[in-house]
């Protein structure tokens, strides 16, 4: 466990101190700022007169864009960067297992992700002070939004970690992560379009859109939690195996 902690610390140091880590933070703030701007812009159309944020959260496409760009940026360098620079051998030469390496790096990416999202709490403070939004009426929505961000973050960051373990090019890892996230997001749409009841039933269980709607609606079910957690675990398990397999190929 101590090794895992050291890997987490090193990775957090990378996020906090390197220009690349700084760039990810700036990118995130620009995207979430744009999203907030879009939401406030809708206020001009009278939407912010509503006491609830629900219409904006459900109709804001930029939220998905934020995830689609931030998650690959946070994970692309985790393992692919180490392979590209050649430091992965040095890391694996220490008495640590591939699972500890993957877990430490993933937890660091998750920490950075949560820290970044926590900064957007400022948006809520601004809305509460300067608009007709009533936070007390939306406590369930805010809690659901927070849960959604944590659970979906776990899953998407795990996809990113897996993609990063499969290649030695961080850029390719980012592209693969975007592809993976799109697949997870849009595949259920295709299933819904078919006539098959089974496919539609499966789509309802694996659709992040459905899960998001349930969480924002204040319905936290075991199925939703299990979907995200088991998905994340599966991806991280595969990432650790991929890192171990690299040893046998390289």
């Amino acid at each position, binding site marked *: 466990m101590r090794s895992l902690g050291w890997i987490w610390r090193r990775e957090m140091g990378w996020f906090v101190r390197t220009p690349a880590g700084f760039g990810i933070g700036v990118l995130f703030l620009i995207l979430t700022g744009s999203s907030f701007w879009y939401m406030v812009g809708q206020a001009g159309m009278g939407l912010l007169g509503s006491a609830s944020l629900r219409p904006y959260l459900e109709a804001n496409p930029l939220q998905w864009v934020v995830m689609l760009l931030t998650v690959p940026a946070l994970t692309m360098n985790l393992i692919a960067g180490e392979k590209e620079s050649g*430091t992965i051998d*040095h890391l694996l*030469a220490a*008495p640590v297992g591939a699972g500890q390496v993957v877990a430490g790096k993933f937890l660091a990416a998750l920490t950075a992700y949560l820290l970044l999202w926590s900064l957007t709490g400022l948006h809520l403070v601004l809305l509460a002070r300067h608009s007709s939004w009533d936070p007390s009426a939306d406590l369930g929505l805010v809690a659901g939004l927070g849960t959604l961000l944590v659970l979906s973050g776990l899953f998407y960051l795990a996809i990113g970690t897996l993609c990063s373990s499969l290649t030695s090019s961080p850029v390719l890892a980012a592209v693969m992560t975007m592809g993976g996230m799109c697949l997870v997001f849009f595949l259920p749409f295709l299933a819904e379009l078919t006539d098959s009841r089974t496919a539609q039933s499966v789509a309802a269980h694996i659709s992040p859109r459905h899960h998001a709607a349930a969480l924002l609606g204040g319905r936290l079910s075991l199925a939703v939690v299990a979907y995200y957690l088991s998905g994340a675990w599966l991806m991280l398990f595969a990432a650790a195996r991929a890192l171990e397999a690299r*040893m046998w190929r390289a």
Partner: protein
Amino acid sequence: MLEFDQVGRRFGARRVLDGVSLTVERRQLLGLLGRNGAGKTTLLRMGAGLLPPSQGRVRVGGVDVIREGPRIRQRVGYLPENCPLYGEMRVKEFLRFRAGLKGLGSGRARHRVDEVTDSCGLREIRRQPIRRLSLGFRQRVALAEALLAEPELLILDEPTRGLDPLQAGQAWDLLRDLAGDRAVVVATHDLETAARHCTHLAVLGDGAVTVQGRTAQVLDPLPHGSVVHAELRGPERGIEEGLAGMALVSEIELTRRGGWTLARIHGVATADLRLPVARLAMDRGWDMRELHLERRDLQRLLETPSGGAGP
């Protein structure tokens, strides 16, 4: 300490190593020589437990390095080629991080970081980010890292690359000291330096160890007959007849250069002809300015599949 037992390694259809058997004991400093692509790095990575062999076994202290991976890696210090390090970290911070990864407790880690910082001459630059260091200093940081956990076995891939001659000499002195109570394996292209500092040499060629043994044995192939070089000044004919008439001489080759006769004298079997040649020169009143036993041509060791060995 480190044992390669009939080790082979393939990458797809390409065979890199085939049937390599090599043993490194405690208090040995083994220089691993070979051309680029000979498989030195592959062999060292297998020794460090980073790469499993396709065939054969690799053991450290009698324990299989693949089966007992993490436990073995605690006993091995490994310095990879090109010393890849985290550029954004400071030297001391990096060493502390690696000490933590190697499982050193907080107090011992602090103590060891201070020790290796001093022994590798890093005190002045310990607060600098690694990306700002010269290649030489980066190499020293990597060496310091390998020494952190006081490993019983040190595996170093080109540890003096990028060092100036003075630094390289200091690094070799340090390696010799370290080999006093552990096994050290060093892959290097610096043949002359390896011959000067290593207690043992092994040459990789064509996927196998072509020559191995104590440095003196590897360099002086007496079993195949010794060769003495002498530079003599005196009557040309007298020198030729005198040398040819010596006991145990099988062949002589003479060339003239600036009034001196350069003689290459082949002895029979293991005969060392230096003393008889010196006595002959004194008896005949010849001047002599050079007399040495021919050592095996190091370059040739690498160039020929058999390691240059032969009758």
